[in-house]
Structures are given as C-alpha cells and as structure tokens.
C-alpha cells in the first residue's frame, strides 16, 4: 500500500463524514416577530406540538437562538427557506457534535 493511497483514503473518509454530518437550522430572536406568531409558524411548518413549539420559541426569546430543525443540507435549506417565507430569521450551521 503506497503512502499516497493512505492519504487518499483518509481524505476520502473525512470528506464522506463531512458530507454526512447533519446541518442545524438555527432560529434567531428578533424584536419584531410576536412570540405567538413564531410558535404558530413552528407548529404549522414542522407539525410540532404546542408544548414543543412554545418551548423552542421561548428558548429563542430568552437565549437569542434555538435549533428548530436538523438533517441533511438539502432538507435544512428547505426548512430555512420556509422559515424565511414566513418572515422568521433562520441560518444554517454544520453540526459539530
């Protein structure tokens, strides 16, 4: 086995792990959107229960941000875009865990 092969395998493995690592959809606090509106959007878009949607909304309100969804990059982008369509402020982060 050549050294080159070892390096190629290592890079390939890292890339594969990187591609497979899920993405987080981060919802940010803002001073304009109503708490009741954010809760309703999370229920409507993601089918969350009232308790879960309320807890996430309060986490956003109190901590400034909360992870409201995660998954492969394509799904995370769709989720973020749907939140933007409803006037919420969402960004994507690669999951570092």
């Amino acid at each position, binding site marked *: 086995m050549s050294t080159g092969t070892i390096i190629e395998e290592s890079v390939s493995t890292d890339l594969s792990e990187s591609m497979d690592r899920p993405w987080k959809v981060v919802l940010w606090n803002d001073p*304009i959107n*109503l708490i009741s509106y954010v809760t309703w959007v999370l229920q409507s878009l993601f089918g969350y229960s*009232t308790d879960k949607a309320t807890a996430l909304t309060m986490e956003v309100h109190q901590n400034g941000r909360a992870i409201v969804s995660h998954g492969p990059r394509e799904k995370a982008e769709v989720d973020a*875009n749907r939140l*933007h*369509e409803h006037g919420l402020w969402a960004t994507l982060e690669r999951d570092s865990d």
Partner: protein
Amino acid sequence: MTHSIGPLRRLGGGRFENLLHDEEKELLSVLPGLVNEAIDMNSPYVTRLFPPTYPFDAVAQTEFEKISSDSLVKQHRGVLEGFCASIQKPEITLEDLVTWVGAINNIRLLLGTALDVYEEMQRPSEDDPRFQDFVIFDYLTWLQGSILEFLSPQTEPDTSA
C-alpha cells in the same frame, strides 16, 4: 386610530365574518403597496424579509440566493396580493386568514425595521414625528395577535353567535 373590538367572528365551517371597520380596511389596503415598493427599490428596510442563510459563508450564501431569492420575493408578494384581494370581503376563509397573518407580518417587519423597534420599546410622545407610524405598528401588532387567536387550536376564541 379607532379599531374594531375584534377583527373577526367565527361562523363555523372554517369561515369568519370580517368585522374590520372601513377605516381599518382602507389603511390595510394601502400598506402592502409600501412593502412592494420597498422590495422594488431594494430598500434597507426589507432586510428582515430576506435574511441571510449562510451569514458567515459568502460563497454558500451567493449560491443559495441564486436558487431561492426569486421564490422568496414571489412568496412575499403573493401573500400581500392575497391580503389586498380579501381585506374587503365580508366573509373570509381559514386560508384567507393564514394569508392575512403572513402579509401583516411582512408589513410589521418592514415598519418595525424602519422604526428600529426593539423589545419592550415604548411608543414615542405625540410630538415625535414617528408617532403616527408607531400607532400603525401597534395596531398591526394587535391585529396579528388577534388573528392568531383564531388560528391557534388551543386558544381559539369562541365568538360564534
């Protein structure tokens, strides 16, 4: 401004009576045009309507905007158009209400950004040049909250006759 005690009355079957006063309908018919104009002009006040998805990755952000910005503009304009089309109707549907909430949110985001609103902010005094805009912003806040009560399953008010 004076406004209705409640904007709606539940009729059953996913239908609602529109109880907004003529003065309110007139105002609400004008406001969507301001948002559309701001979008056309790429005003800095529309930034909250088009937030970055990748704020720390310019390349990814540019690529994402290529595939999403047109549909996002279309979505925002669509709810504003739907709002204008139904605001004068005496009877509206649940689907209309969802459109109303989205349109009102778009207007609040524009106005709130222009007024630099922050949490727990107090309305300025009547001699402040921004006073009337704050009155409208507060009215929209009340209206959106009132409509959400009709959309939220656990808190929906029973105002049926």
